[in-house]
């Protein structure tokens, strides 16, 4: 009947240091993808990567947004923040590398596995960052 390609766009705010609400944006993203009937395996990959990226904003940055774009072919997550930025992206990508304080480690994060896992969950990942300005991470997930 109607063969326009369904596409959607959502934007959620994330506040640095707000551990009580940390994960709310990723939870919303996951529910939206379930509602549109996305494949379970892709939802899981998006949810894991989005949650790690959201946690990074909460842990390391001041303020940011999680943006979801989806159509029939792919899902794109952009996580954009104002914060300290990542000085050495290659170093930050090393499994186990973390500058998170002990208080964060006591909550179960800060193991330095977030960025590597985001990369392995997504089909494409790009990081742009400027010191003392912020970080933008774009992840693409292709429908199999």
């Amino acid at each position, binding site marked *: 009947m109607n063969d326009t390609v369904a596409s959607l766009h959502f934007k959620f705010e994330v506040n640095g240091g707000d551990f009580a609400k940390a*994960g709310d944006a990723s939870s919303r993203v996951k529910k939206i993808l379930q509602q549109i009937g996305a494949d379970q395996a892709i939802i899981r990959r998006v*949810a894991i990567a989005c*949650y*790690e990226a959201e946690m990074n904003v909460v842990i390391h940055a001041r303020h940011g947004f999680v943006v979801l774009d989806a159509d029939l072919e792919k899902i794109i997550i952009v996580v954009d923040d104002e914060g300290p930025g990542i000085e050495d992206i290659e170093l930050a990508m090393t499994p186990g590398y973390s500058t998170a304080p002990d208080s964060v480690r006591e909550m179960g994060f800060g193991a330095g596995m977030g960025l590597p896992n985001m990369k392995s969950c997504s089909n494409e990942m790009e990081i742009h960052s400027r010191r003392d300005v912020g970080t933008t991470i774009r992840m693409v997930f292709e429908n199999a």
Partner: protein
Amino acid sequence: MEDSFVSKNTDHGVTLRRICEILDGHFVCGEERADQIISNACGCDLMSDVLAFTRPGSVLLTGLTNSQVVRTAEMLDLKGVVFVRDKHPDEHTLQMAKSIHLVVILSPYPLYESCGRLYAAGIPGCLEQSCDERHSGIASF
């Protein structure tokens, strides 16, 4: 000694109810969903490691009780979480667990003992073949 009220391990995994029995534990929430079958388990306090290595449908055993544990369970589609050493989650965490229909069990044993009891009962880890795969002879990775 066996009686019909004690749930048994099946070839395909064990129920969360059986897991609760093995741990001498009790349900904090989600008992109405305790008959779901689990085929792998994971014991960990590092949520990033859980996010990297845990299979869907597993049960997570952990010594942490903050809301990030429940968020992690939600992202991974875990069926249940066991809080060890009788550590009760706070009200916020509990409400979150209820809202995502998570089965939450409290075990009196520390993490190592709790995991050991489940492992001895035949529940594999997340990098091993699940009970289902062992049963059907499918390779795990």
